[in-house]
């Protein structure tokens, strides 16, 4: 028994260490879990990219919504744009934009050229609301439930695969499931 243990123990310890390091090795270090998940979306009041009224978190009250942080300066956002157009065409849930540290004319120009998938867009010129939302690299996309709680955050561009295999099932879960 003791001899068996003497052999097995180092193997078990080695296995555990290999598992630990492998997890670290294959984890994307640029993706940092947001502490905001499971918490209410931070309150804000911003001008709209178009229109005069203020844009606040009341905009999506009572419904599942997607909030996409983007900017016309952000190359990955341009790459992501067709996926957002595809998402908007599904009419699943409203998609709101947070135009982050952008210039109004440049943002409008990009939407005119590539299409506008957004239900409405908040305009965060200083990036202060972005900081409150823990944004550190656009594009970022927040999934918000009917109670206004942040349920998930995608860092980096959404892809057609991510949309189909992850986002849409999550939305179905939030829409159909218990409130």
């Amino acid at each position: 028994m003791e001899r068996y243990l003497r052999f097995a123990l180092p193997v078990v310890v080695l296995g555990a260490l290999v598992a630990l390091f492998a997890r670290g090795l294959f984890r994307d270090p640029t993706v940092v879990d947001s502490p905001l998940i499971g918490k209410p979306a931070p309150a804000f009041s911003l001008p709209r990219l178009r229109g005069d009224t203020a844009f606040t978190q009341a905009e999506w009250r009572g419904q599942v919504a997607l909030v996409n942080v983007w900017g016309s300066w952000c190359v990955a956002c341009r790459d992501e744009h067709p996926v957002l157009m595809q998402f908007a065409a599904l009419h699943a849930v409203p998609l709101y934009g947070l135009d982050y540290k952008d210039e109004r004319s440049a943002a409008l120009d990009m939407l005119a050229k590539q299409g506008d998938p957004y239900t409405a867009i908040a305009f965060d010129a200083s990036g202060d609301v972005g900081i409150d939302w823990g944004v550190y690299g656009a594009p970022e996309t927040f999934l918000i439930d009917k109670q206004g709680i942040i349920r998930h955050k995608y860092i980096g561009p959404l892809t057609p695969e991510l949309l189909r295999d992850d986002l849409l099932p999550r939305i179905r879960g939030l829409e159909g499931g218990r409130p």
Partner: protein
Amino acid sequence: MRRFCAALLVLCSFAAYGIDSEPPFADATLQARYEALTHGFRCLVCQNETIADSNADLAADLRRQVHAMVAAGKSDAEIRTYMVERYGDFVLYKPPVTAGTGLLWGGPFLLLLIAIVAVTAVVRRRARMEEPGEGRSA
């Protein structure tokens, strides 16, 4: 030559400006607090730099926030909480002791303990094995 040296001096002096565009505090204690704080927060865009060292856009915005909070009389703890609420413990260069980081903080001591136990066991066994040998040679 003198002109060349002068040009070199001017060029070198730019380095001293650094990347922090926030105006320094008139009060030296506030400035010291501001510098200590910004050196303790990780820039999430370029993760191995503090927000004091990074010239990323986000780092500049976060320096502005920290500067404003120090100016507004917020305590270091309040400013740290502000950052952690938004970016998580990852933003702190010195992670707090929690259940998740327990292994990180306690790991070295645990390894030391294991090593002491192992060495003690080996030394004891050696001593036991050598005893009869000594008996025979004597």
